[in-house]
């Protein structure tokens, strides 16, 4: 370690070499895609549990006497899907140097995401069963809950993006932050469609 210290006395004068990128894809976007790959596998584990309970065990869905508020969930789905379009609007706006579109798009996306999450919490509170009431509630709460956690994370990212957008940190040349957060938000939306179809519709 002594040798290590001596070798770096001139540390402050050192600078990293000019980096060389061996791929056209930007590291942070590739990182986000790989992270989403990992997230898909996490959902995969939860869907495997769903498969075991519903297909292998043949649990009645929903198990009487419980009901699922399908219409409410459908409206909620529409809200979340719409938020994906406003997200896309925000991204195309920032690429065209249109700060109004960026801010409005991000704000609308955030508000719709928040509406979705609040509706889901309200649904939990009035649904009439709890986690300990058997296999059907277990899977219901865990799949929608896992997705809810992802909405929460997505909203946190959106909040930070919105703050930065209103402070004018993004423009046509610097919109990585919007793009990466946007990829995540689209993933959260697509996952909800899958959760909605398997838990509420099928």
């Amino acid at each position, binding site marked *: 370690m002594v040798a290590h210290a001596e070798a*770096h006395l001139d540390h402050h004068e050192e600078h990293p070499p000019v980096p060389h990128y061996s791929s056209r894809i930007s590291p942070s976007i590739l*990182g986000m895609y790989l992270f989403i790959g990992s997230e898909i596998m996490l959902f995969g584990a939860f869907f495997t549990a769903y498969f075991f309970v519903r297909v292998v065990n043949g649990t009645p869905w929903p198990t009487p006497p419980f009901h699922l508020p399908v219409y409410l969930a459908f409206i909620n789905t529409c809200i979340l899907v719409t938020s994906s379009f406003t997200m896309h609007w925000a991204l195309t706006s920032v690429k065209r140097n249109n700060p109004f579109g960026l801010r409005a798009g991000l704000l609308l996306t955030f508000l719709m995401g928040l509406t979705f999450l609040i509706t889901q919490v309200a649904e939990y509170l009035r649904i009439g069963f709890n986690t300990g009431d058997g296999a059907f509630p277990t899977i219901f709460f865990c799949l929608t809950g896992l997705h809810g956690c992802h909405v929460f994370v997505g909203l946190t990212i959106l909040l930070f993006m919105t703050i930065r957008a209103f402070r004018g940190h993004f423009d046509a040349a610097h919109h990585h932050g919007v793009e990466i957060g946007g990829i995540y938000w689209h993933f959260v939306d697509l996952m909800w469609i899958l959760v909605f179809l398997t838990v509420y519709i099928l």
Partner: protein
Amino acid sequence: MTAVTADHHVPTAPSQHGPFRRYVFGAGWIRAAWMFCLFGGIGFGLTVLARWGGGWHPILYTQPIVLLSLLVAAPIGFLAGLGTFDYWTYYALGHPTRAEDHSGHGARSWRDYFRVNTDHKVIGVQYLVTTVIFFLIGGMLAMLVRAELARPGTQFFDTQTYNGLFSVHASLMIFLFVIPAFAGLANFAVPLMLGAADMAFPRLNALSFWLLPIAGVMMVSSFFIPDGAFACGWTGYAPLCSSHQPLGAVFFNQGVQWAGASSIMTALNFLVTIITMRAPGMTFWRMPLLVWANFTTSLLVVIATPFIAGSQFFSMFDHVMHTAFFDPGNGGYALGYQHIFWFYSHPAVYIMMLPGFGIMSEVIAVFSRKPIFGYRLMALSLMAIVVLGFSVWAHHMFVSGMATWLRVPMMVTTLLIAIPTGIKIFSWLATIWNGKLHFNTPFLFALGFLSMFVIGGLSGVMLGAVPIDIHVSDTYFIVAHIHYVLFGGSVFTIFAGMYYWFPKMTGRMYSETLGKLHFWLTFVAFNCTFFPMHLIGVEGMPRRVADYAPRFAAWNMFISLSSFALGASVLVFLYNMITSWRHGEIAPSNPWRAMTLEWQVSSPPPTFNFTEIPQVVGGPYEYGVPGAVHAILTPSHATEVPAEVGV
């Protein structure tokens, strides 16, 4: 989150404030300590508030409170206090970014190893030192297990404590030693080998290291809570572990989450680094095999680790929230745990082996002075193992009562894995064949690995066959097999890698005499410890039981004594590492006359590895090939490279 570029920005310490404020509020251990308590308190408050609001009684219910405040919120506070989130928090709150001053990069004194450091070389050393500490704790637990097993009957521990000992032993060795030790070696070597200045995401790299001690401390500390540690084996089978275990089981569930998050982040970082940060000319077919090995391992980690996260979430929810994932009485599916768990944990076997294969390829080619035999097939067989590794999980479940039609397909795929593995073994042998062998310590460990891993691999092929597996399931034959592949395989490669890169990491040579002594002690004691387990296993001695039939007494006494010798051999390693690090001979930049890029810079390497990114012009293993060049570096770093690398 950007790569190592000149235009990324980091906040500097709040220097306008007085020294006291900086002491308490600046990133570091003081802030980590009070933020640990603060976040723990917040977690406690929120849990109690939610239970009160939801009308769940009792409000002060131990399990969810301990889980959320002590095992989730408090560690986040610790990380925040240490400063792992500083840049991101600063960015998230909308502050304008400042120019990167590289203040968090590199080590100038020993103190820099105890803070959040973004230098991949420092992180590599942090990983290795941390994992060796957990290796020692895990080894100590193993010797306690052997002390109990030295004679039939119960000597020192009651059965629950005994079960806790071997469970924590396995968890530490797997999640806190083998997997992260490989991550540490790769952290140090891979960016250098690629000709990059650092990993793609240095701050993420620092975060993923600091998650690790949290996981380890969580698992070890489960001994000190009421009712003791988790005691259902490292596999944590449900419903045993999800409903009939003390609070310690939750420590295991959550510890695995922290370790898993750490390894997913590292793997993601490796993948992005390898894809986007290669030096010009470094095509995929010119990458050293260590880089290939970590590329394939990282694919496995990113794809498979979420499944163990899932299995531990379900088990924990069954425990804390009374859900019914694995509770058959309430509509759950008990076998589901094993399917989900092994869908991760079989690929995890390769996560614990493929980086070792990479180390072996480096060491064997360098010390045989020959090009690696079958380079492309070596890389492709790694990919084949990745693909096949996902199709064999149920061979751990032949006796579990799962659908019988699953048995034969899983047996066939299991036996198929012997083909890519065999390709690698024979390619290494062909590399050694007719080479100019140099029996330095890394090469001795490589030879030890080759012979021991073949034994472990052969017993693996036996276990892959359904009838033999049914006969020896849950006996000491399994214990022997796993130790031959994980100790004789993985741990030997970790030792080889530590000795091989020791001069590069520390700038000093280790003692070759002590290294050889360490190897021979380990090799002999290892075989004396684990080989007899095959015999008593076939005769029917069950594993994971504190007591056994008197007819196994003689072998068990022998195994216990050998295991203490194996423990003692680690002391030689420790003594060698510590004294050599402090007083060893100064290492030249390329003591092994290796061609890969990390040996072409000084020992230890400069803070940013290269003054200019090198130009790669050829393969990495052209030893003995006249005029072969791997890369061209700027002159200031290439001074000490011997003219004729290929001798």
